[in-house]
């Protein structure tokens, strides 16, 4: 280490110690009782607004913003006004921990919608619990995230849930019996595969499980093996480009099966690339923007008018999460403890991402939306 570097290192060290001291000091200072000062309830959001995952965080923030604006404009909260404060994490979990501390200690928020990435929520959750500030994540799907933290909730669709619900639907509603599973070798594909396989084995039969890699072009070797086992349906646990090619090549090989998939397929490119071959596919989805229900269309229109693009699943789940918070304020009251009770009591909330309840662990119970490709378009069948 050169002398100059050493100096820098020392300086950084000193600053870090100071920062820690400040943080500890912050914890001691008594917060003013929020909500009681009358009319303003502060909602914080935490998520990546910059960096590689910025799209997720920005869309979440936008979804919350629209919900807050709607609630303020409608006047249904009486004399309570909602105020939104957003913090950027850059996708980094340690920055998320700082953001939680800042929102709670400095801004004095009453409730947090966030964080976005699972690692961020894992870092921020304990901080919120310590400060007794209710937090609802619109998108962190990691397993057991909300367990043991009564202040942490989430409103999102986990891979396990959507795969299991589709397996059940396929057996009970579509009458399918012999499943083949074709999954992409990453955490998304593997968790979908595990959950689908478990449920499908419980209810019917799984005759083949094959794996592919993202970016593969030719799936014929695996499809040839799948064909040998004579399935009546093929569950594709992957993303739309590969899924469309799989559908195409399956059709070329004369493998006539009912195609099934998860939200990774729900993109127009799936139909563009797959064409005729993907017709009739059933896929689970977190959010379907072309859903004609007024609530969905209102949100989509408001979002498009404000931001000039179509909302995605993240924006929609954030919008629903914010409305769960707003309903909690309406039914129980504006201080953090009341909001926590309100969120925990959420039952059959008619969100734009499906009918939603919160279970005793703070996790989501949701009727997953199921889409079907019909006439070259996704239509909602459940």
């Amino acid at each position, binding site marked *: 280490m050169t002398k100059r570097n050493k100096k820098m290192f020392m300086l950084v060290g000193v600053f870090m110690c100071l920062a820690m001291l400040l943080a500890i000091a912050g914890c001691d200072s008594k917060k003013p009782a929020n909500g009681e000062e009358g009319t303003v309830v502060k909602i914080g959001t935490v998520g990546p607004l910059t960096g590689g995952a910025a799209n997720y965080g920005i869309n979440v923030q936008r979804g919350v913003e629209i919900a807050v604006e709607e609630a303020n404009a409608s006047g249904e909260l009486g004399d309570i006004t909602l105020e939104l404060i957003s913090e950027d994490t850059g996708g980094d979990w340690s920055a998320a921990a700082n953001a939680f501390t800042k929102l709670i200690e400095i801004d004095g928020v009453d409730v947090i919608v966030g964080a976005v990435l699972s690692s961020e929520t894992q870092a921020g959750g304990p901080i919120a619990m310590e400060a007794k500030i209710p937090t609802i994540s619109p998108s962190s799907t990691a397993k057991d995230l909300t367990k043991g933290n009564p202040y942490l909730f989430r409103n999102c669709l986990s891979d396990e849930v959507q795969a299991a619900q589709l397996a059940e639907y396929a057996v009970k509603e579509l009458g399918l019996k012999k499943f083949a599973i074709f999954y992409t070798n990453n955490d998304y594909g593997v968790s979908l595969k595990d959950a689908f396989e478990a449920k499908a084995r419980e209810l019917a039969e799984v005759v083949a499980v*094959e*794996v592919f890699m993202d970016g593969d072009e030719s799936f014929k070797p695996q499809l040839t093996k799948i064909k040998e086992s004579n399935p009546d349906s093929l569950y594709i646990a992957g993303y739309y*480009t590969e899924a*469309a*090619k799989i559908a195409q090549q399956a059709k070329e090989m*004369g493998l006539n099966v009912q195609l099934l998939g998860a939200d990774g397929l729900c993109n127009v490119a799936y139909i563009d*690339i797959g064409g005729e071959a993907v017709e009739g596919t059933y896929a689970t989805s977190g959010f379907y923007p072309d859903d004609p229900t007024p609530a969905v269309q209102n949100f989509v229109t408001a979002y498009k008018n404000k931001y000039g693009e179509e909302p995605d699943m993240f924006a929609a789940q954030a919008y629903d999460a914010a409305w769960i918070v707003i309903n909690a304020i309406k039914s129980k009251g504006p201080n953090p403890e009341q909001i926590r009770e309100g969120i925990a009591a959420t039952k059959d909330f008619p969100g734009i991402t499906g009918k939603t309840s919160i279970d005793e662990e703070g996790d989501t119970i949701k009727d997953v939306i199921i889409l079907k490709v019909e006439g070259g378009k996704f239509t909602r069948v459940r």
Partner: protein
Amino acid sequence: MFIQQLVNGLILGSTYALIALGYTMVYGIIELINFAHGEIYMFGAFAGLLLVTVLKVPFFLAFFLAMALAALLGMTVEFLAYRPLRHSTRLAALISAIGASIFLQNLALLIMGAQPYTFPSPVEAKVYQTPFFTISRLEIIILIFSFLLMIALTLFIQRTKIGKAMRAVAQDKDTASLMGININQIITVTFAIGSALGAASGVMVGIYFRTVTFSMGLMPGLKGFVAAVLGGIGNIPGAMMGGILLGITETIGAAYISSQYRDAVAFALLIMVLLLKPTGLLGRPVQEKV
């Protein structure tokens, strides 16, 4: 199932073979590994796609036009990136080739963006069932076209005057030039033909797998190179054989070992062949002229 996998491998292999020919021809003439070849394959696919979707050119014509355009690109790359370095070290030319590859890929990214484009299907999807395997009409067309192109190339090199000149240049550049052969012209023709074959493969793969992206040349380019080395680089029948062998090995490997080791199987084959026969399957040892 085994026969079906062989057929799958044969189709994949014939597209590799076409790419491998471009590598091997260029190497045979100027001993340069043309790393920009994968990008010319990508360019061919895009040219075919744009001709069909934007200019509404009929498929058959678009196929040959894409080959012609890629030939032009190949000649341009040779003129700008390789010719000025003809007399410098081989390493300099190799680095220039890698540079050309990166440049072309980024150019495509800049112009076409990162999203995949969909190639419309030229023929009605129809599947033929035989007792041993199934094959689609498109696959039959790809096989026929690949083999026709390979036969045409062989005839061109064996029977025409330019082909004879190409063989002469490959054997000994200086002597060939003393015999009145225009070396630059022959090299240009070689690049043009190699690039056209690469583009033919690009268009067919684009149609077959339905998508065209800016990065589609990377892996097939590498596989084409492996196929060329496998068959003995510089050897034209070797490149065809290497391509088909590679396609079949990969498919069988994916089917019977693991689909995740598909590429590993391909490269393991290369290493094995090079250990046992360093000159490739059909290659002859080259005497270094000191």
